[in-house]
């Protein structure tokens, strides 16, 4: 985002990123059972963000993790003769941690055919049902209503990205539903409560846990589908996987698992009965590379279109706003200049992700619910306008004072002098750094995934995890990014060489 880096950086970054991805995903050696025992600790990964009742920060003992899976991890570790150590990760990317410092994932990971294909899955340890939730004042009172459009058109239903709820809803082509993926379950509950979403589909145990906090929500009918949670391990640690299976078997047989679920108000007896009757889940087939490309390319291209749209709409707004801010700071009244300076510092001093989060999740609380795409464009434009304003300020200052004075001396107003003489020269001066920032924004659009916008990086991440073809899709995604940013880099270089000729 700095003004001075050259477009070559883009190539460089993309290549390094691709190489890093390839190296990271080229199966690192996962620790087998004997290594886990030798080190004496068993590292399990989960996402504590809004993760009740699974894994969450204990409100009574700040800083301490609690949840039924925290206790389960301790119990499994004890069975293995080691102690459990927690590792935080983003929920939909937890499986990627396997084989890299993490021995297993215990975090409400549903047993699905795709997961059985890509990872080793333990025997089920918990039975969940998918529960649809809506606001108490919503016209949505039965799941079947989703088959026809609602009063506001297609129903907007939030899900946890990568969850069985998402897989289930996306497979139901008979429903008039726009599925919106969130990075945390709390996020979608919040958005139903604030009226941005019509409903959310989540695991029933999560609703039981948060029902009091989200008192404005109610269950729509009974659970519509269900399945089992599994402990994920890497495919190349069969002895560790077997040991976890045996540990779970003992915990089920001697009643400790039932007692755990009863402590957490999770209906221990029904859980044990459901686990006893668990049916075998099939393993998903592996697609050929050609099939993979045919299946994923349309989605990746659509997502690339979203990336392009975000950058191409946000950046012109950022440029216009940035120029206005720069002119206001340099030529406006003192109070305005101070106000703008403070605003620029606030925007520059806080992360883009936080700004997007505030616009999307906090504004609805004061009655301003923006659609995700609008919020994304607003956030990107706001964030980049601060940086562009700094560039323009430098550009305006670089125009010799005599130009402004000569314009004034002809009887022009301050604004006429700026518009016809100073600003055109400043704009020309800042062309290279501004183009460079356009390329930077291009890549920053990926941050918008935190507010449910599915752009290229998010689409890649979702597809890579659902297909298990992490490396192949990374290469395709990198090529798409380069195809979009390369013309920009050329453009930027042309501006620069033109500058050199004029100077």
């Amino acid at each position, binding site marked *: 985002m700095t003004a001075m880096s050259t477009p070559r950086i883009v190539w460089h970054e993309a290549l390094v990123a691709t190489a890093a991805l390839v190296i990271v995903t080229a199966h690192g050696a996962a620790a087998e059972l004997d290594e886990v025992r030798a080190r004496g600790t068993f590292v399990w990964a989960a996402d504590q963000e809004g993760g009740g009742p699974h894994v969450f920060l204990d409100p009574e003992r700040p800083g301490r993790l609690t949840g039924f899976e925290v206790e389960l991890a301790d119990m499994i570790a004890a069975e293995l003769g080691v102690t459990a150590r927690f590792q935080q990760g983003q929920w939909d990317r937890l499986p990627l941690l396997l084989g890299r410092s993490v021995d297993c994932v215990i975090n409400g990971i549903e047993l699905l055919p795709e997961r059985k294909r890509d990872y080793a899955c333990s025997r089920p340890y918990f039975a969940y049902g998918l529960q649809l939730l809506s606001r108490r004042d919503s016209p949505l009172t039965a799941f079947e209503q989703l088959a026809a459009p609602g009063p506001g058109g297609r129903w907007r239903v939030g899900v946890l990205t990568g969850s069985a709820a998402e897989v289930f809803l996306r497979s139901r082509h008979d429903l008039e539903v726009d599925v919106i993926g969130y990075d945390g379950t709390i996020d979608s509950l919040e958005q139903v409560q604030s009226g941005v979403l019509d409903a959310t589909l989540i695991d029933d145990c999560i609703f039981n846990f948060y029902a009091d906090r989200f008192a404005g929500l109610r269950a729509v009918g009974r659970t519509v589908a269900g399945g089992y949670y599994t402990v994920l391990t890497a495919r190349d640690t069969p002895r560790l996987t077997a040991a976890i299976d045996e540990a779970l078997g003992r915990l089920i047989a001697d009643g400790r698992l039932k007692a755990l679920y009863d402590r957490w108000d999770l209906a221990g007896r029904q859980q044990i009965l459901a686990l006893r009757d668990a049916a075998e889940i099939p393993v998903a087939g592996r697609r050929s590379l050609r099939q993979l490309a045919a299946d994923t390319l349309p989605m990746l291209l659509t997502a690339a279109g979203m990336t392009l749209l975000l950058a191409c709409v946000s950046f012109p707004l950022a440029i216009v706003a940035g120029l206005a801010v720069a002119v206001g700071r340099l030529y406006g009244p003192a109070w305005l200049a101070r106000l703008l300076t403070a605003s620029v510092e606030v925007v520059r001093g806080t992360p883009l992700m936080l700004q997007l989060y505030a616009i999307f999740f906090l504004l609805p609380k004061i009655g301003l619910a923006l659609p995700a795409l609008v919020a994304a464009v607003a956030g990107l434009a706001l964030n980049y306008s601060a940086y562009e304003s700094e560039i323009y300020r430098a550009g305006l200052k670089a125009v010799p004072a005599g130009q402004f004075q000569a314009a004034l001396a*002809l*009887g*022009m107003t301050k604004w006429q002098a700026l518009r016809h003489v100073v600003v055109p020269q400043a704009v020309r001066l800042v062309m290279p750094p501004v183009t460079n920032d356009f390329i930077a924004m291009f890549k920053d659009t990926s941050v918008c995934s935190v507010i449910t916008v599915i752009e290229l990086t998010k689409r890649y991440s979702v597809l890579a995890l659902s297909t298990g073809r992490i490396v192949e899709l990374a290469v395709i995604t990198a090529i798409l990014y380069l195809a979009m940013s390369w013309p920009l880099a050329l453009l930027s270089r042309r501006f620069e060489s033109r500058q050199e000729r004029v100077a």
Partner: protein
Amino acid sequence: MIAVAGLSKARGGVTALADVDFEVRSGEVTAIVGPSGSGKSTLLRCVNGLETFDAGSISIAGHRLAPGLQPPRLLERVRRDAGMVFQQFNLFANLTAQENVALAPRVVAGVSAAEASRRAIQLLDRVGLAAFAAARPATLSGGQQQRVAIARALAMEPKVILFDEPTSALDPAMTAEVSEVIVDLARGGQTMVVVTHDHALARRVATQVVELVAGRVARIGPPAAVLGA
């Protein structure tokens, strides 16, 4: 046309101008001379409001400037009537010679773009540069740039033109070509105030010479009286 009375200005506690009085009559040319730092340019820039002053008054082409910050509207009217030519030319770097001349009539006086361009060519022709209408300032010599700057000032048909050391940044050959244009304007009856080091130019164009020393009027009178024969 111009009456400066009791004009005083201090900058950072140092006197820049002290009790300056002089008048410029319509159709006449006043040269302001004096050593560097004597306040010549400051005086000129006060006359069209590019700088403020602390005491005294200036009336110019029927407008009256008082000490301190003046309303923007008043300054815009003063500047339409008082064109200015700078030592460093200050041609608009983003525009061609023709566009430099045509810009102010178009955006300030509301002349149509076609008419402003047509008149710009006439004015460039008057300073001998019609062939350079499409040239950018960076490609012109200093003398050419200053002649375009004079055409630019003329385009607003000002009642008076203020020259701030118009030849100081030029070599002798270019000084001569710019001087010819100024002499030509003087012959045509254009009211002008010329701040200059160039006594030869002052003798040729001025009807009155004001000599400033340390911000005060040291001498005022006909060229022969102030500059010697």
